């Protein structure tokens, strides 16, 4: 009887341990003010700078700063299925590969990396015209941190 109970407990643990990582296609949920950045462990508060990715294995990583996402990704070398960032203006999720990034010294991001993202190039260039900075794509952004 005890053996059965123990087996049931172990099964329960296994289910609990696996429950958080069910794969999905869309952008992951971020609970602002509650979720903690996987890189710096600080609370994610501001959607404009928040970023996330989903690994091939279905795990979700959440970040309070686009730069932290890239740092974490390069450091861990995880296989990533999809990167997500927010449009700085609308706060809507955008696939990072499709987004246009601006690095601007006048933007104070949560961890000081200074990157914001836009869904369209026009918005990015308007932002640069107003605040200064440079426009780049995701591949260039990875290279800033020594990525491929």
């Amino acid at each position, binding site marked *: 009887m005890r053996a059965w*109970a*123990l087996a049931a*407990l172990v099964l*329960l*643990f296994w289910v*609990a*341990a696996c*429950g*958080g990582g069910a794969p999905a296609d869309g952008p992951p949920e971020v609970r*602002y*003010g*509650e*979720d*903690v950045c996987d890189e*710096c*462990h*600080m*609370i994610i*508060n*501001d959607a404009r700078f928040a970023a996330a990715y989903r690994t091939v294995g279905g795990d979700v990583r959440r970040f309070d700063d686009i730069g932290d996402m890239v740092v974490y990704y390069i450091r861990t070398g995880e296989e990533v299925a999809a990167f997500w960032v927010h449009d700085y203006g609308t706060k809507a999720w955008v696939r990072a590969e499709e987004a246009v990034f601006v690095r601007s010294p006048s933007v104070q991001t949560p*961890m*000081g990396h200074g990157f914001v993202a836009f869904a369209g190039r026009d918005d990015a260039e308007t932002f640069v015209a107003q605040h200064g900075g440079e426009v780049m794509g995701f591949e260039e952004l990875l290279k800033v941190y020594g990525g491929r």
Partner: protein
Amino acid sequence: MSTLWTRFRRALAFLLLGLWWASAGALSADAQGPVLVVSPEGPYTSVQEALGEASPGSTVEVRGGVYAGPLVVEKPVRLVGVGWPVIEGNGEGTVVKIVAPGVYFGGFVVRNSGDSLDEENSGIAVEAPRVVVEGNRLEETLFGIYLREASDAVVRGNVIEGKALEVPRRGDAIRVWYSSGSVIEGNVVRRGRDVILWYSERLTVRGNVVEGGRYGLHFMYCDDALIEGNQLVDNSVGAFLMYSRRLHLRRNFIAYNRGPSGFGVGLKDMDDALVEENLLVDNRVGIFADNSPREIDSVMTYRRNLIAYNDVGVQLQPSVRRNRYEANSFVENQEQVHIAGGGRLRENVWEGNFWSDYAGYDANGDGVGDVSYRPQRLFEDLMGRYPPLQLFRYSPVAQALDFAAEAVPLVRPQPKLEDRAPRMAPVLPEGVPAPESRPQWAFGVGMAVLAVGGVVLMGWFSLGWPGDRRRGRRGDLPRPRFLSRQPEALAANGEEENMEPMVTVRGLTKRFGRFVAVRDVSFDVGRGEAVALWGANGAGKTTILRCLLGLYPFEGDVVVGGYHAKWQGREVRRLVGFVPQELSFHDDLSVEETLAFYARLRKTSPELSPDWAESLGLEELVGKAVGELSGGMKQRLALAVALLGDPPLLFLDEPTANLDVRSRREFFDLLCRLRDAGKTILFSSHRFDEVAVLADRVLVVEAGQVVSAGTLGDLAATIEGGVVVRLLVEPGQVEEAVRVLQRAGLEAERNGTGVWVCVPSHRKVEPILVLAGAGLSVYDFVLEPFSTVDHGGE
């Protein structure tokens, strides 16, 4: 000659005076130049107008009244508020902006900035070096004081209260940005978002109070900072220190920081930090470290910190190396050390720390345990690997797993760490501030954790009990804890439940290695009953009490108030007010502070019921520092702490061991009143007089066994054969007393500072009379049954 000398001295004086004027004018901040007065009645009615007229070095004295902002200070002047003049921002932009170096700005109320985060609307924005911002009150400002490229600033003694917005919409109460060499000192911050210190070297952050925000302190890229004597409480995170070198964090009080991450101190990518003598109390995680140190030749040092009552004492990422933990005290953290991702730490040093769950022994009495501290719990290990398991943290499931790991060594995890020299007693940090701003629980807190420490928890583990140490305590059995409350647990006060004993002990056996300290002890304590454990020192009384409190693993069954002490120690301890044998108070704390602190820890009111407060004579103690109290008063305070929350049970371990006769009598009068009021009392004593006064029943404990049990009448019969009278005489007269007694034909011997005399029970007064007849004073005496006296010592 003398005239010439006089002229020379006069010329020199003028020269020095001239130089002083010149330098004062140039440096300006401390200068006392011309004074321009601004007040509603004039001569100036506008601060900005007076500033326009002022020359560098002038003082602009602004008297009480309301003045419209924004104010821009573009000259190196002193702006001095007299009678709390208000600079009103009217909800727009930044209220005061200082762009000239060397400005002094103090004594103002700065109110009502705009609320744009993007524009960083602030109360006081400083954009020039060597500015002093001192003694101001900032109210309803988004950002409070913002140093932007303002090196060598002094921000001192300001009170900053932010806008009543949700935390993410607030600004930073203090922001230090590219402002090296600045001093942030003695400020009080409430309702801010963060206190941010970025890109600034050689900062001093001292004596500030930061509460109710997100990050009490957030350091990024700040080398060589001193962070000292701050109180960081009720924030999401106390201090988050990142990407900095050689930070020195000392003597801070960091408590109740329980946000989503809830770190007392978080360290990320730090090098060569020294974290010492801090109090880290009741945070989610006391200390969190990730990738610190980051450089190969760097070391992180944590020493003499008190890390108490946190959910997790220290949480480390598994990659953390070269951390030294020395002489810290880990007290009742639900998990003392947690490794994120599980596994075992490497290349870290754990040495000489106190661990409240250490169950080893100290045979040679050198204060250091003789076996290593090696925490190994299967559930904690699994939880580290699979964080979702935290759901089960307090459940019977976790308990069952740990039990399985104990029973089946195959699944026992590797210990996370090893402390080869665990201390038997905690190290108390000193000099940590007691906040004045929150007197209701200020208490220089953590000090008090250990202070009355004895009373609530600390004493249970480590203070005192020399007998136990010498006997030895076996080591590394993890103690099961944190089970949820069981249905049968004490909850209702139904008649049927009242019939159940409050304490049921069956077959209690406690072994320390091969030594059996308590053997097959069984007894009950009924509701409202006072029961004595009576026996000589070293008989096993303390061990029995500690088993009942769930502080030792043991064999047998113990149920206290419906909880099983073996698995539900914490629940049992909530039900029991405990007064240990040895108290350790912090002398600087007041009685109210001590009570308030423990009330907060136990999540109950610091107010005792008026009856108990009166019985304890608390009024007499109020306003006194603990250090001023006599032994008897301290014992009353200990009892008061034990009574917080009005627990139905009281356990007392030799509660009057260190009191004089009068204090003992008073204390036992109190206990009798508690018994008469319905408290269930279990106490240990080796004094027959105490037992006679208080106990309804007596359990005679001898060599770890209950050798007889019954009423006082029964007990009297057991000592018919003879008693030992322990006499306390003048230290210099001990030998003489022994000689006098022996000459009178009595069997007497010296025992430490006292004298033991064995006499038939009907002659127990005789030794006192004999000594009195010889002119020797007896200050105190204790009667013990001959059979329970351990003549072999302890």
